[in-house]
């Protein structure tokens, strides 16, 4: 799959929408057409085999069917998010378009430097946008830490013709830089405060470029790159990401338990707890861990567009179902994702990671069930529009479909058997 049509569609449609939609005051919901156009472009160019660009380019990061499938899913997820969001302003639309283009290029490029530059540009734009939307210490921290984390990935780039990185200091340095960049991008402890603090100030379409575009691309590409590192670099990545992921998931689960009735703080905590598990999974090349993290990512791509929004009247039913899909009770997709991740971790490191992962999984069940109950108890007298209701139901139904057919979903969308 060539990346150009999809990236250009993201960029050009985002720019056009940013220029034109502010003039059409009552038609700003048409912003959802930006990711929808990119989804159509991704669908049209989705084919079998590997990405031509990636194969032709040197270095690691050879992505093919999985990258194209993820580009399609991200665009669809962003479409649903924009249908459910309050109408975005031109700055938000532009950031979404550019971040979509950058995440697509990051998924397809064969150059580790270009890959990292995509994340720097994306995180910088996102940080600037957050600061402009809500100037505060938390959003400034997001601009600082998010951009710095991506810059660390850029620093790893020149050390990453991975075949040559067999000299120990170089392999360790590259691995350490990659792990640091991934930790900052995922919002892990101790550099992850920007996500929870920022999520209190910006929601919906403002938070979505990170959660639905940049984050999935970072996850998928980090998996590939991590597998392509030499042994020294891989052990450094594992040495950093395993404890940091365990700490993050434990801390996020604890915070999620103490959220109480503040619904808006709940989803970022659950997302961060799952990201902690995913980071732990990145520490091992076990295929089970990889499949588990991909299923968790798919789950959040499905429910994220709905749960990233403020709870709004008229959408209590879909929210309740989305929380249930996140609960981790079989056969929800979160169950398969967490189970496969744990199985991969046990295969890679023995039983020790279970000391963290089982309590975290238990805590997440409690948090999500409480959230589902809270969503059900809100007044639901108001009626949302047909398109909004359809989009809101689409999110949890898609998640449940992933839970019922996890193998098929991974094969159909990401080309994994």
């Amino acid at each position, binding site marked *: 799959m060539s990346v150009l049509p999809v990236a250009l569609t993201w960029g050009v449609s985002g720019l056009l929408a940013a220029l034109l939609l502010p003039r059409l005051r009552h038609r700003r919901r048409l912003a959802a057409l930006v990711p929808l156009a990119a989804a159509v472009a991704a669908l049209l160019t989705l084919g079998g085999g590997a990405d031509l660009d990636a194969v032709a380019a040197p270095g690691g990061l050879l992505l093919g069917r999985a990258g194209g499938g993820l580009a399609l899913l991200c665009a669809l997820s962003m479409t649903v998010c924009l249908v459910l969001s309050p109408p975005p302003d031109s700055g938000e639309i532009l950031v979404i378009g550019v971040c979509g283009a950058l995440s697509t290029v990051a998924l397809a490029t064969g150059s580790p430097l*270009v890959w990292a530059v995509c994340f*720097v540009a994306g995180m*910088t734009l996102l940080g*600037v946008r957050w600061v402009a939307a809500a100037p505060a210490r938390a959003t400034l921290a997001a601009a*600082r830490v998010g*951009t710095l984390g991506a810059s660390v990935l850029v620093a790893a780039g*020149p050390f990453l013709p991975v075949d040559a990185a067999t000299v120990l200091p170089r392999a360790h340095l590259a691995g350490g830089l990659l792990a640091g960049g991934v930790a900052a991008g995922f919002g892990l402890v101790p550099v992850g405060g920007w996500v929870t603090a920022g999520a209190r100030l910006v929601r919906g379409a403002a938070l979505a470029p990170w959660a639905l575009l940049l984050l999935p691309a970072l996850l998928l590409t980090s998996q590939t790159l991590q597998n392509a590192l030499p042994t020294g670099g891989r052990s450094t990545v594992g040495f950093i990401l395993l404890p940091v992921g365990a700490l993050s998931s434990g801390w996020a689960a604890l915070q999620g338990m103490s959220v109480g009735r503040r619904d808006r703080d709940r989803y970022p905590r659950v997302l961060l707890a799952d990201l902690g598990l995913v980071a732990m999974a990145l520490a091992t090349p076990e295929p089970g861990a990889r499949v588990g993290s991909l299923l968790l990512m798919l789950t959040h791509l499905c429910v994220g567009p709905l749960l990233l929004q403020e709870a709004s009247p008229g959408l209590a039913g879909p929210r309740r179902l989305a929380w249930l899909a996140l609960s981790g009770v079989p056969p929800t997709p979160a169950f398969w994702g967490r189970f496969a991740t744990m199985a991969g971790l046990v295969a890679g490191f023995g039983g020790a990671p279970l000391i963290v992962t089982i309590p975290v999984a238990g805590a997440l069940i409690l948090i999500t069930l409480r959230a589902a109950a809270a969503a059900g108890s809100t007044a639901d007298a108001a009626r949302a529009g047909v398109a909004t209701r359809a989009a809101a139901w689409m999110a949890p139904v898609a998640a449940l479909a992933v839970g019922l057919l996890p193998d098929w979903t991974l094969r159909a969308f990401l080309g994994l058997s």
Partner: protein
Amino acid sequence: MQVNEPLLAGLGFIAAVVVTLVDGRNAVSYASIAAGLGVAPSVGEIYGADGALLLIAVALLAALIGPLSRALSRRVSWMAGVDPVVPVVAGREALFGPRSIRVAAGAAVLPAASWVSFNVPLGSASTVTGVLFAAALVWGCGAMRLLTARTLVDVASGVAAVGLGAAAAWLIAGGVEALAGAMAAASLAPGVAITAGWLGGRHAGVGAVARTTT
């Protein structure tokens, strides 16, 4: 030809000092020019003149395009928003100001850049020459600028330095398609110059510190 290591390191050091200290509405332009000129000789020595020219050209483009973008956005329309040179959060009175903190952070980068340039092999460059020093120092000072950022201009200056430093390191590593990769990394500098300039023109004159709450 023998590499004049102290001269290359000295140029990198001067560039890093400018990247660390420069402030104000044109900070991104000055930081880009300094970073480009500071790392270009090292790249010219190892990769070749075309690499050095690329970095200088991109740095000059960033220096020009920032004010141009600002002038253009002034003509579009003024609207309330965050002026990129105004601190996002009000700082408390302290013994050391933001510049002092940046200098202290930049000083910590020096030994790290030196260690990397002498101990980590990169591409065809020998570990003895230490030619990576200038690029590593400029990247490190850009990263420190990001870490200690109080304004959007700080963020933009840091990203510009990071991009140019990474582009130089990529050229020194000398892989396949080195110029294309370096151009992608260096393009961060004009990109952030346009963004900072645009915001500066659109929101200039918002005098008060935006907000002090978390």
